[in-house]
């Protein structure tokens, strides 16, 4: 079976947490439903939610917290 990926919809900075003093949206091993928020992309000081467009179990984060990403770059993989 092909690995399912969640791609960044925008270029910017990827965050796994809603704010620095809160826990991550999702951890590896969590179940993800379509529409679940897995992270944020900050573009020019505006924050955009990254929602899963597929369902599955989160097997890995390909991008790190606070990492600069390009539009279309994989952020996470689902099994």
């Amino acid at each position, binding site marked *: 079976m092909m690995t399912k990926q969640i791609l960044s919809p925008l270029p910017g*900075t990827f965050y796994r947490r809603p704010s620095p003093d809160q826990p991550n949206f999702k951890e590896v091993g969590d179940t993800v439903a379509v529409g679940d928020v897995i992270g944020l992309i900050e573009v*020019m000081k505006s924050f955009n939610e990254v929602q899963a467009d597929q369902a599955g179990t989160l097997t890995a984060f390909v991008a790190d917290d606070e990492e600069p990403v390009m539009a279309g770059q994989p952020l996470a993989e689902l099994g």
Partner: protein
Amino acid sequence: MAITKLLVANRGEIAVRIIRAARELGLKTVQVHSSADAESLAVRMADEAVLIGPPMASKSYLNIANILKAAADTGADAVHPGYGFLAENADFADAVQAASLCWIGPKGDAIRQMGDKVAARMAAQAAGVPVVPGSDGRIDDPDLARSVAQEIGFPVMIKAAAGGGGRGIRIAHDIEELDRLLPQASAEAKSAFGDGGLYLEKVIERARHIEVQILGDGTRAIHLFERECSLQRRRQKVWEEAPSALLPQAMREKLCASAVALAEAVGYRGAGTLEYLYDDTTGHFYFIEMNTRIQVEHPVTEMITGIDLVRAMIRVCAGEALPFRQQDIRLSGHSIEVRICAEDPAKNFQPGPGTVTDLIVPGGGGVRFDTMLYPGYQVPPFYDSLLGKLIVWDENRAAAITRMARALQELQVGGLPTTKPLHQLLARDPDVQAGNFHTRWLEPWLEQNAHRLGTQENDA
């Protein structure tokens, strides 16, 4: 001058602006930059460039140790912080001076005093500058908060002493709401700013935002008249003018004199701005805060006075006495600046970074475009969306608005959404033309005009 090599601790259009001023003063320049800004115009223009970290600002433009190391490695002897980033960070100002470098700004203690909103309010009152009615200082006792609120009248704003930029503000409409919000506000201020101190201010419902530009050498200060920045969205300025559209001359003189008194009272050095709310129905003005740096909208002041503010602030901070007397500063004509941002006004101002495919910069008499754009430049997604500032000057306000509309029509930025269509609509609006606005005018106007914000009026 006592300095020879200036390090620019900022990016974007203001870095370009500072390099220009430095070059005219015969200074060498060092541009520090993140890895995302290696191809920026400021990096290309500066005599030297030093990489100080990855794209994220906290690891590059806010990284004090790396900036100071870049200064040491290049032999820079002065640091200009621009606006934003570390410009109002008193610890950075102190660290620069402790490293025996010249800091192009006021002393750390002046930044601290004016950065603490309660201390700034008290300094203003001591200098005879009217402030928004509110508590005399920090307010820790809920009983005192209740009696102050009743005395000044609801609604009241609960503000964080250490806050700023519109953050940490709550509005209470009655005693019950005040009781409920006080503990929340204190807890939030403690976690956001490390200081739970609060104060109260009356809500001024309908006011114009008017600010006075000052310049000081640590002993003497002068004003360079006022700017008006009443057109705001989410507390961010979008269209700025000098002088104010509707301030009476007698009021102008009072406001400017009060700003000079406060600047001299705190021994201010460099360029600074005192911000006021002006109620044009009662004729009252109230000091709200001081910005201890050069501001985004400084060019409109340069256009009506002929004074280069960035050059002047470098000279006074390098130790020269103020090169102007008050009577040397003359107000001539009218100037307007609009902020051209990489945002789509038709899509709720969604930011749109990308590559500039082509660029046509407006020209002709009385037109200036301060920008870091060039054809092929890739606008990074990591910083704010300001692409440039279109500034015009003309003999009077009506002519300046006409000239702004003409310049906007010439401006072409290909490859990105911009806020140009917003400014084209504003320039044609009867209320804008009449100067009939206040700080809460633009947001409802945007809702009413949302359907008209999508089209660029490029055709003659």
